[in-house]
C-alpha cells in the first residue's frame, strides 16, 4: 500500500507536467473580433484568389502536409501558426511582387493575431519538396515547370485551409 501511494504521488504528476505543454496551445488568438481578419487578411486572400484564378489545373489529391496538420477543434491556433510559417517559404520563390506582398500580409498578419507566447526557434521547415514525400520519386521525373505547378497548387490549398480555419474560429466566437 505504501509503495502504491508513492507511485501515484511521484509518478503521475510529473507525467502531467510533461504532457501539459504538448496538449496546450502556446498561441492566444487576439483577433477573435474578426475586424483585423475581415479588413486586412481577407483582402489579401481575395487578391491572391483573383491572381491565381486563371491557373487552377491542380490535382485533387491532398498533400501529406494536411494529413499531419489540420484545423481540428482546439488546434486551430496551432494549425494557423504552422500554416503561416509555411507561407513564408513561398516568399523565396520567383513570383510576382504583388503576390509576395499579399502572402506576407496573410502570413505575418496571422502570426500577429495569434500572439504566440512561446517564441520557440522556428524549426527548419522542410523544403517544399519534402512536404510530399510520396512525390520524391516523382520530382526526379517531372520537369521544373511541373514542380512549380505543384507548389502553386499546394499554396492555393494552403491558403484555402487558412481561410477555412479563420472562418471556423470567428464563427465559433460569434456563437459564444
Amino acid at each position, binding site marked *: 500500500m505504501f509503495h502504491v501511494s508513492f507511485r501515484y504521488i511521484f509518478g503521475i504528476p510529473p507525467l502531467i507536467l510533461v504532457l501539459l505543454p504538448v496538449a496546450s496551445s502556446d498561441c492566444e488568438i487576439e483577433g477573435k473580433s474578426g475586424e483585423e481578419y475581415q*479588413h*486586412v487578411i481577407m483582402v489579401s486572400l481575395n487578391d491572391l484568389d483573383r491572381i491565381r484564378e486563371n491557373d487552377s489545373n491542380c490535382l485533387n489529391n491532398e498533400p501529406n502536409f494536411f494529413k499531419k496538420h489540420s484545423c481540428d477543434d482546439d488546434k486551430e491556433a496551432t494549425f494557423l501558426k504552422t500554416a503561416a510559417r509555411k507561407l513564408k517559404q513561398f516568399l523565396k520563390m520567383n513570383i510576382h511582387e504583388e503576390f509576395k*506582398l499579399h502572402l506576407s500580409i496573410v502570413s505575418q*498578419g496571422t502570426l500577429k493575431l495569434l500572439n504566440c507566447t512561446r517564441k520557440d526557434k522556428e524549426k527548419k521547415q522542410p523544403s517544399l519538396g519534402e512536404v510530399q514525400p510520396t512525390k520524391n520519386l516523382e520530382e526526379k521525373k517531372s520537369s521544373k515547370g511541373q514542380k512549380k505547378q505543384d507548389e502553386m497548387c499546394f499554396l492555393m490549398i494552403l491558403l484555402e485551409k487558412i481561410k477555412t480555419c479563420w472562418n471556423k474560429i470567428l464563427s465559433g466566437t460569434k456563437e459564444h
Partner: protein
Amino acid sequence: MTILGIAFGIVFCLLRVVSGESGYAQNGDLEDAEPDYSFSCYSQLEVNGSQHLLRCAFDDPDVNSTHLGFEICDGLLVAGCLNFIKLQEIYFIETNKFLLIGDSKICVKLGQRILTCRKMNIVHIVKPEAPFDVRVIYREEANDFVVTFNTSHLQKKYVKNLIHEVAYHQEKNEHDWMHVNLSSTKLTLLQRKLQPDAMYEIKVRSIPTDYYKGFWSEWSPSFHFRTPEAKGPGKMEPVLLIISILSFFSVAVMVILAGVLWKKRIKPIVWPSLPDHKKTLEQLCKKPKKNLTVSFNPESFLDCQIHKVDGIQARDEVESFLQDTFPAQLEESEKQRLGGGVQCPNWPSKHAVITPKTFRGDASLRCLAGNVSVCGTPVLPSSRSPECREGGKNGPHVYQGLLLGPGTTNATLHPPFPFQSEILTLNPAAQGQLLLTPLGSNQEEAYVTMSSFYQNQ
C-alpha cells in the same frame, strides 16, 4: 544616532537638488530645457496604387529639425525599421510594407540617438482623401436640390466605409453653416428649407469609420448655386389653368344639354313608357281625312279607278297599261261589276282575284247577254290601294261612265251583284277581312263595323 540621521538628511537633500537641477526649468527659463519633440502623424492608404503614405510633423513649429529624423519600427512586413523622408519641415514615408495590424513605433532620432517615440496604429490615424466633383442639381418637379459628389475611396480596398459631412450656407451669412452627415455620396435638400432667390455655397469632407479610424479629410472645392424665386400663392401652371377651364365649360354644356333633351330623348331611353294598346292601335291606323267619304254605296266609287289585282303590281303601271288598252269606262264598269275595287290596306292579294282567263269567260257570257261594248275587252285584274277611298267622290262618275260607255246605250248591264256573287263563289277561301260585302242584307252590318271602328278612335 542623531549625527547619523543629520548626515543622511543632508545627503538626501543634496541628491534631490542635484537630480532636480539637471532637467528642471521654471518660469520660462528654457536655456537648459530640452525642446519639445512632440509630433503628430497621419496615414493615407492606397494613395498610389498599393503604396501607403505616412506623414509626421512636429507640433512645435519652432523646433530646430535640422538634424532630426523619423523612423518607424514594428507593424511592418519587413524586419527592422524604415526611415522617413524629410521635405522642408514635413517627414513622410511612402511604402506598401505596412502590415496594418497592430501598433507601430515612430521615433524621433538625432543621428542614431532616439529622442522620443510614440506608439501608433497606422489604421487609427487615417486621413481620407478630400472629396471632389461636388454638384447641385435643381429639380423643379420635386422642388428640391440633389447634391452629388465623388470620392476616390469608392475604388479602394481598405478604407471604403466613410462618413461624409456636407456643409452649406448662404453666402451673405458667413458663419451660419448647416451640416449634414451621410454615408452615401448623394444628398437631397428641400427647397422650402432654403431661402428663395439666394446664393449658396456648399462643400464636403470625409472621415473613416468602422475598423479604420482617423481624422477629417480636407474640404472639397466649394460649389455655388442660386435658389429660384418664390412662386406666388395664387400662381398656377398655365396648362393646369387651361385644363380646369375646359373641364368647367364641358360640364356646363353637358348639364344644359341634359336639361334640354331630357324629355324628348333621354327620358324615353332611360325610363321608357309602357305601350298602351289602345293608343298604339290608334297610331298604327291612320285617321282618315275628315272629308273622306266612306260608304258602301257603289255610286260613291264611280270616279274611282278600281282594278282587279293578280298578285302585287304597281298601281301606276296597271293604270297606264289599262289606259292604253282599254277604255276607261269599260274598266270602271268591270270594276263596278266586280265590286272589288275599294278595299282597305288589309285587302289580301288572293282575295277576289280572278284571272283574266277566267274573267274572259265571264265577259264572253256578258257578251252573249247583249253587252256588246264589253266584248273583246279583257279586264286585267289589279289590286287597289286604300287611296281609292279617297277618290270616292268620283264614284258616281265611274258609274256614269259605265252607263255611258260607247255603244253601250242599248246594252244592258247586269247589276254587279251577280258578278260579285260569282266572284265570291270563285274564291270561297276569301278571308273574312273582305270589307266590301254584297250590298244586300250585309250592308248594314258592314257599315256598322266601319263606323264602329272610327268611333273607337
